């Protein structure tokens, strides 16, 4: 056999060997890809299966919550009136009145009365306790939770000589409205201390 033929055979063998080596490597890599894709497809199938009922359930939850919001908004407006309702909401969550009530589009046009200056501080404190609810987490003032370790009652224990817990007669919460016996005058009281209401005869005794 001529030398040129031998060299050609060697060259062809080299080419075939290279093809075999790289194609085998490629086949192995493609098999890994196929296996991983099978895993991924299986997991995606599980995801689809698990998320299938989510839309219906969330829609039902939202429908219930919408009904609850409508109920509470309606009750608040019915009992307090639209203006005072907006004022109460703004007193509890400053700035929230701008969003208004969902079922009462006119509520966005109402200038919120400063309920915090009409109701006693204790009334608002009681109402603010509701800010422990998760819905209050979005309050502009942040979540204000009760802190029993720093409550005012704890401070009173520092006075063992019998410091009065509270006055014998406290003024009642003022009656508000245009027909209230004591008319509130913002020009007189804004920035100053609250005017104390006279105690009734039953409270004095």
């Amino acid at each position, binding site marked *: 056999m*001529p030398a*040129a*033929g031998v*060299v*050609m055979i060697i*060259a*062809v063998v*080299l*080419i075939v060997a*290279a*093809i075999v*080596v*790289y*194609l085998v*490597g*490629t086949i192995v*890599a*493609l098999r*890994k*890809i196929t296996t*991983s*894709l099978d*895993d*991924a497809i*299986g*997991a*995606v199938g*599980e*995801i689809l299966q*698990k*998320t299938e*009922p*989510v839309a219906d*359930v*969330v829609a*039902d*939850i939202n429908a*219930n*919550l919408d*009904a*609850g919001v409508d*109920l*509470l908004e309606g*009750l608040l*407006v*019915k*009992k*307090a*009136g639209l203006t*005072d309702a907006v004022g109460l909401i703004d007193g509890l969550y400053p700035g929230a009145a701008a969003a208004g009530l969902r079922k009462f589009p006119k509520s966005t046009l109402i200038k919120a009365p400063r309920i915090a200056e009409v109701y006693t501080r204790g009334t608002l404190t009681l109402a603010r306790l509701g800010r422990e609810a998760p819905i209050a987490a979005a309050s502009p003032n942040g979540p204000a939770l009760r802190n029993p370790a720093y409550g005012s009652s704890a401070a009173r224990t520092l006075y063992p000589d019998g410091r009065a817990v509270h006055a014998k007669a406290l003024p009642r919460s003022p009656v508000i*409205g245009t027909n209230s016996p004591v008319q509130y005058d913002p020009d007189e009281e804004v920035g100053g201390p609250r005017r104390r209401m006279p105690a009734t005869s039953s409270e004095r005794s």
Partner: protein
Amino acid sequence: MTLEWIGDVLLIVVILPVVVYLLFGVFTAANGIVPSVERIARAARAGSADLDAVPLLLTTQDQVAKTIQAAANYGGSLDVILDDAEGA
């Protein structure tokens, strides 16, 4: 004879490097896909595991319905107890 030698040189100098270059490119590309696909598979498995809590939504749904029902009951009582606002 000379033509055979020319063919051998072409085979070794041109054809063989081109074949090796092309095959190496295919092999590198296939190997480059493997880690990406494995990451996708891991992410899909993790996503599927994260969704194991989805059935708890049914409990949430039930609790929300009960809570709204309780609120409606309280609201009805309050509606009876409290006077309506003037003009309401």
